[in-house]
């Protein structure tokens, strides 16, 4: 510290000394980039004043409870003014350089590394290996603790899924209702119509809206058979499919009426309504499960049975073959 008369170059052992000369005004490195620094400074000062104005404006706007866009514009003027000022200050008025700093190595010296290796080797041999039994016991104890700790940890996560994912609330004879809770009469829809239906009483619940949601479509012909074995699943041309896309579970809510395609808004999977909702396009791997329907004595649509497979996207333990559930 006493000889600060010379260069300020400091070698503290970790960095290559940087030749930062004491300010000499003739040094071109220390000259600002601006040709007329005083003029530039005034410009920057103006910018910063505008910034200060913006900040004050923001404060006033907040206190006076002006609308959001005033808050946004005033804050933008404030921060941009100060920011542009700061950037211009650094670029045009500070010493222009270039300055050089050599890369310093990360590694320690040769001696330090040798000493480290010696420490590791010798400590292990002398201190640890001599008491091999203790080391083994400690390792065994900690290992066992790790294993037994898994059980409370697993249990704390919650109950196992079971067949939560396999089943929906649709049962034999469940009435189809719209979001307002109205049952669907056989005369309620024209061919080409589509409505989202839920199991009666569950139309406002989370599980009803997420898992049980089903699209009900009416097609022109009254004897529609979507697949072999589904001969009586679509009475009066009413056909129902799970609304959960088999790709990622988005609601398949778009209906291309002319082509009779159900379209998923997320990734544009298309399902052919007429052929058992087999995917025609897009990433969906499987057809949408079809809900077997029938018409009850009062003329309302009910489920002939529940879905015969898990609805929605796939998972590892998903049963791939449809359940035989007496729908026939």
């Amino acid at each position: 510290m006493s000889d600060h008369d010379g260069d300020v170059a400091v070698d503290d052992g970790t960095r290559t000394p940087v030749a930062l000369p004491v300010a000499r005004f003739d040094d071109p490195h220390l000259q600002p980039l601006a040709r007329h620094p005083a003029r530039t400074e005034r410009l920057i000062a103006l910018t910063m004043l505008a910034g200060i104005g913006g900040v004050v404006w923001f404060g006033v706007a907040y206190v006076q409870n002006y609308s959001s866009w005033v808050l946004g514009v005033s804050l933008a003027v404030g921060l941009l003014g100060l920011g542009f000022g700061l950037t211009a200050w650094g670029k045009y008025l500070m010493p222009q350089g270039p300055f050089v700093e050599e890369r310093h190595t990360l590694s320690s010296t040769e001696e330090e590394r040798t000493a480290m290796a010696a420490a590791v080797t010798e400590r292990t041999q002398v201190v640890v290996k001599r008491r091999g039994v203790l080391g083994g016991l400690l390792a065994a104890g900690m290992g066992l603790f790790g294993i037994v700790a898994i059980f409370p940890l697993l249990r704390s996560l919650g109950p196992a899924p079971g067949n939560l994912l396999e089943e929906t609330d649709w049962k034999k004879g469940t009435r189809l209702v719209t979001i307002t809770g109205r049952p669907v009469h056989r005369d309620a829809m024209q061919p080409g119509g589509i409505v989202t239906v839920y199991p009666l009483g569950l139309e406002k619940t989370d599980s009803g809206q997420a898992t049980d949601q089903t699209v009900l479509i009416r097609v022109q012909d009254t004897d529609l058979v979507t697949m072999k074995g589904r001969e009586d699943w679509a009475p009066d041309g009413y056909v129902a499919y799970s609304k959960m896309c088999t790709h990622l579970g988005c609601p398949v809510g778009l209906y291309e009426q002319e082509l009779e395609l159900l379209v998923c808004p997320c990734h544009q999977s298309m399902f052919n309504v007429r052929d058992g909702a087999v995917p025609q396009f897009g990433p969906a791997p499987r057809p949408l499960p079809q809900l077997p329907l029938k018409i009850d004595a009062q003329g309302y649509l009910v489920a002939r049975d529940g879905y015969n497979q898990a609805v929605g996207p796939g998972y590892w333990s998903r049963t791939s073959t449809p359940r035989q559930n007496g729908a026939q």
Partner: protein
Amino acid sequence: MSTTDAQRPRTRREAKRANPYGHVQKAIDEIDERLGVAKGGRAFLDKIFPDHWSFMLGEIALYSFVVLLATGVFLSLYYVPSQSTVVYHGMYKPLDGVRMSEAYLSSVNLSFAVRSGLLVRQMHHWAADVFIGSIVIHMARIFFTGAFRKPRETNWIIGVTMLIMAILNGFIGYSLPDDLVSGTGLRIGYSILLSIPFVGNYLAVWLWGGSFPGHIIL
């Protein structure tokens, strides 16, 4: 800094020569004797930062993170992380009487009722977008200039980990308002989790507390 009696400064000028940095030196001495920061601090202040614009991409990420933290704290004071259903009777009349989750209600209130709430929400939203975008471009710069090579492999791995965490955090933030896109995003996240071999259905059901939408995710 050893000063014997003989060297004790007699004039102000001499005192200045003996200790040219005055109070600053004193303060730094006090701090350094306790924390030992002078050496690293000087290296930090003297560090020569590359002039090329591409080195600023990391700064953009850093400062958008600062904005995210500040605005996020503000938002968290008003946001209610609850899925229970309530009826809206707030300032935004078109939604009057609509049943919605408490989380969504608090988001609507943040936009319409909380002073400067919409501004802070928008700042948070855009900062999150800029954050992830700038990280990606920053990582691309590091990749294409070979700055991930020895001895900086650890830095690279930390960077990739932070990018993944930023994306996950972005997804969580996207899900919080419980609006339509949140629900769709959560639905897709749930389905992606479900698709993991062997453990997917366990992970999804545990994280959501039952099958989608569950009751604990918010």
